[in-house]
């Protein structure tokens, strides 16, 4: 079975985000970047499917500029067999990403597309569902458990009221939630080896995808900060404040 994993390069989750003063976006210069954490989980899951002998070829795909190569290098180091970068310069919108991933999935005849449930920069939570729609495949979003057997995927999904388990015919799209697994650390020698491996390149034109933006950023602004509060000395003072100042108890 062939598995495609989508990996996006984003600002590292530990970085304190700074909004640019001109409101055009957030500061990305000299900022630590890494693979979207959910995509690392998706990748780990695919590597485990490989180790279990279920996945025969693991394809890591990123949509991004030259610098995005680095997330593909770590994907190769983690266990991906091939890496493809789809060359775009502007940061792509989820529908464009989905169209590109769907095109590659078709071209490569993959059986499973594994994505993160959301990219932690745009927080969109869209690309997986959109990819599934464009391919006409079923979807298992927010997965906390995935089992593949007899041409089907069984997915436990984290939903608002609890957990829903669905069974999907393959091919399918699955998006990873935090508790699907804990990604392994990539060892340095593996990383060094990955540096020498080839990275395939594609373009939106060759894949027949129109990259015209459908929404326009007007501005990015900082949220209004909460007013600083006070420290209270003990439980009595806390209760007094909650009751007589805030009136919430």
């Amino acid at each position: 079975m062939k598995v495609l994993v989508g990996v996006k390069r984003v600002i590292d989750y530990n970085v304190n985000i700074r909004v640019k003063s001109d409101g055009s976006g957030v500061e990305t210069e000299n900022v630590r970047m890494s693979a979207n954490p959910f995509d690392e989980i998706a990748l780990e899951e695919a590597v485990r499917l490989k180790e279990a002998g279920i996945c025969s070829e693991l394809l890591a795909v990123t949509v991004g500029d030259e610098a995005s190569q680095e997330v593909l290098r770590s994907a190769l180091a983690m266990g991906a067999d091939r890496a493809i970068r789809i060359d775009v310069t502007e940061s792509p919108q989820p529908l464009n990403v989905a169209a590109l991933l769907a095109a590659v999935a078709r071209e490569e005849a993959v059986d499973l597309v594994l994505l993160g449930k959301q990219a932690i920069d745009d927080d969109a939570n869209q690309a997986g569902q959109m990819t599934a729609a464009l391919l006409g495949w079923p979807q298992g979003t927010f997965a906390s458990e995935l089992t593949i057997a007899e041409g089907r995927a069984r997915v436990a999904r984290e939903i608002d009221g609890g957990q829903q388990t669905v069974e999907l015919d393959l091919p399918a799209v699955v998006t990873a939630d935090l508790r699907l697994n804990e990604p392994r650390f990539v060892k340095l020698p593996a990383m060094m080896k990955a540096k020498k491996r080839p990275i395939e390149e594609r373009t939106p034109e060759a894949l027949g995808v129109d990259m015209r933006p459908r929404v326009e950023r007007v501005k990015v602004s900082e949220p209004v900060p909460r007013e600083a509060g006070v420290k209270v000395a003990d439980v009595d003072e806390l209760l007094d404040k909650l009751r007589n100042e805030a009136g919430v108890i």
Partner: protein
Amino acid sequence: MTNTILVVAETAGETLAASTLSTLTAARELDGPIDVLVAGARPAATAENLASMAGVRRVLVAEAPHLAGGLAEDLSGLVAGHVEHYSHVLAPATTFGKNLLPRVAALVDIQMVSDVTVIQDAETFVHPIYAGNANETLRVLEPHKLLTIRPTAFAKEVVGGGKAQLERIDVGETQAQSREVELQLDQSDRPQLESSGIVVSGGRAFGSLEKFRLLEELAADLNAAVGASRAAVDAGYAPNDCQVGQTGKVVAPELYIAVGISGAIQHLAGMTGSKVIVAINKDPDAPIFGVADYGLVGDLFEILPEFHEKIRQLRSEPKPELAEG
């Protein structure tokens, strides 16, 4: 140009989910007739309920056994078939809406907007990005605007006075590519996390499932919902649907009490909209104190029992009248 709005209702069994009320509030801001689509195995009661809400012109009722699980594969085709009649299609930004609307959007070739918190005008919307560390204002160039609505950003009030028509719609065949095989819903009789007036949340500091009960007992006496940090959920102290944060639930209660939670940005993303925030943490430099109205530094295992005991006493006394303002 006038707006016509379609709201995709979320149901909880045979009742309306609170998130649908917020979505209706957002729809009313768009100023135009609102149609609501409700789908399920037995949507009749919910449909009646929706028909009585202000601003609702028609309730589109999709009834079929295969719609019970709310699977996006079935629902998306259904909703997609109606998009062309509306300027705006709204669904709540809950796991229901997040699973569904992007699939609808791709079927009709439209770039949607997730998690809208402000509707500026018919084509301009604000939503948080980077775990709420920035707000992005977007102008949507698409012929139809597809939006998921962040429930905490719009009031959950029931506005009655509507007299909408009910209209059965064609539900089509089930696609049979996906099936629900199991549904485990939380059976607790606690108030719901998303709509409770008080939320008490616990973090890694509790150290065990047994100790986490301290928090649940306090919640019971406060008639509060229980929340948790990711670390507490990962450790198994609380079920996954209790997670508050960037990738869990967003809550905005009157009172949020964070106990033994450090306040990572991913957690803050889910609770800084609360009216009053209390933090209890033994580390005076914990980031959670940066957003807390009232911070108490100390060991939760000493503070929590005392707090709980005194709450019990207080609860047996009448609440004082507050001066307005």
